[in-house]
């Protein structure tokens, strides 16, 4: 069995985002980049399947050289091979990422493809579904439990107020949700070994974006709070302010 995990590098979740000088992207100065946390569940699931049944495992990422860090982290957790599809520029949208991944996956022909359910940078939740459409493969997202048999998978996914159980033929695409497993802490030995493991580099096969970022803005700063200081006597004024100024009642 061949398993591919699509991984992305995202700003650390504690990053205080600043807008860059172009006004169309974030200022990356001082930002620490990490493997997308949901991708960790995807990687862990692939590694567990490898340990159970000896599957061949790949981590694939689209982006700049920096994205090699995401592949290295996947190596540290136990993935064996890595492919970086090098972006032609820093300006790419979800479709460009999906198309490039789909082209590479089409060549690799894995039996099972994992994604994190979303990346925590743009939170678009778009790419796994686009890849599934481009490859015409079944896709189950937000998966919290997975059983893999020879030719099919049984996936449990979260739905509003309950669970949905889906059986799908392979090949299939699975979007990993928190709870699918407990991602391991990389072992010291695999951390040391990951550095010298080669990463295959591929050229980008598509670069025509379908969307364009016009501008990027931070949410407006929170206004100052108002404190009414006369206890119960302020009740009438409070109601008036809530109705006329805040317009919430």
């Amino acid at each position, binding site marked *: 069995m061949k398993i591919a995990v699509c991984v992305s590098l995202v700003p650390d979740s*504690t990053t205080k985002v600043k807008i860059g000088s172009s006004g169309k992207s974030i200022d990356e100065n001082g930002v620490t980049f990490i493997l997308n946390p949901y991708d960790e569940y995807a990687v862990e699931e692939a590694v567990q399947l490898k340990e159970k049944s000896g599957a061949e495992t790949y981590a694939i990422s689209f982006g700049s050289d920096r994205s090699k860090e995401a592949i290295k982290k996947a190596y540290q957790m136990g993935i064996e091979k890595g492919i970086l599809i090098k972006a032609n520029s820093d300006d790419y949208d979800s479709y460009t990422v999906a198309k490039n991944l789909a082209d590479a996956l089409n060549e690799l022909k894995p039996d099972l493809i994992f994604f994190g359910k979303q990346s925590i940078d743009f939170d678009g939740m778009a790419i796994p579904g686009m890849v599934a459409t481009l490859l015409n493969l079944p896709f189950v997202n937000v998966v919290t439990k997975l059983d893999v048999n020879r030719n099919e998978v049984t996936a449990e996914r979260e739905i509003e107020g309950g669970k949905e159980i889906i059986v799908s033929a392979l090949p299939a695409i699975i979007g990993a949700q928190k709870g699918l497993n407990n991602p391991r802490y990389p*072992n010291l030995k695999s*951390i*040391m070994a990951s550095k010298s493991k080669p990463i295959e580099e591929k050229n980008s096969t598509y670069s025509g974006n379908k969307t364009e970022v016009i501008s990027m803005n931070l949410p407006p700063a929170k206004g100052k709070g108002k404190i009414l200081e006369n206890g119960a006597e302020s009740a009438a004024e409070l109601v008036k302010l809530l109705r006329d100024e805040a317009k919430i009642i």
Partner: protein
Amino acid sequence: MSKENYKGVDYYLLDELFTEDEKAIRDTVRDFVNNEVLPIIEKYNQDMKFPIQLVPLMAEMGLFGPNIPEQYGGMGANNIVYGLIMQELERGDSGIRSFASVQTSLVMYPIFTFGSEEQKQYWLPKLASAEKIGCFGLTEPDFGSNPGGMITKAEEVDGGYLINGAKMWITNGTIADVAVVWAKLNGKVKGFLVEKGTQGFSAPEMKGKLSLRASVTSELVFEDCFIPKENILPNSGGLKSPLMCLTQARYGIAWGTVGLAMECYSTVLEYTKSRIQFGKPVAQFQITQEKLAYMVTEITKAQLLCYRLGQLKDGGTMRPQHVSMAKRNSCEIAKNIASMAREMLGANGILDEYPIMRHLNNIESVKTYEGTHEMQTLILGEDVTGLPAFQ
């Protein structure tokens, strides 16, 4: 310190000196401490329990014997890596770091250094994987700083040795599968491996500690305890052998207590910036800034001292006295910083909502164990004058 925001303390851009491996390993251990240690440690500390469930996880990560060669189950990592692991673990809790220190520096190291090939083959992989837990018995009720005066003795008998005596202040004693015990054989100090369950050997846990509460501390009692001939550490000889082990342990403490200081400083920095008194953050008062400046300066100096010590250790030119200087310095500044941090947090400083009081209590032990502050001072004093004060 809220775990999400902790970025370490790196005022002098030391990260530029660390290799990619060293940083990646440190950050992995930091994640482990953030996710597994910090959420539970206050409760375990209050309950006076060691969180033993963390041990298999630490073993899987390779945190026991990282600097032991791979053929014996270690990782073959350098000593900067070992130091950074200790730094991160002690940022979590001195008890967690103590467990790892003992397993690596006081059990795996003596077996690796003084053991027979059979002992190494048998014990080291089991200790690295934490299938077996170890402890180290040197200190006695009446012999602490002066271990050469030990009363515990071994007597040669048919097929082995009979050990009689008692050890005290032994980390991991009660939970250990094997004790590295130092006893006098015909007047000369030798190391012995005493396995759990050996007749005449017991390891009751010491109670009533107000420090290192999340760590097991025990007595080891030997009453005509027979151990087979093959359990002697054949290449040990004289007091120098256990002292060599202590040098290893002190190396880990030197790094570890910097981690403790980093956590206290980070906590108090965040607190004083958000705590408003007299209409401005407490951090804006000169009296606070003087303390913060002291803390970050001392942490930076200690980090540089440890880093250089690691280079000397890896280069084979480190002397035990170098380690004494770092152990003495790190513990001293960590204790000062923890104590200042407690004051700067005001009444909040005594609550278990913050890690400060636990660290302050722990550093009281760490400053004393594996060679007291005073003994490190006298070791340095002797080294620079050539005149021993304690002989």
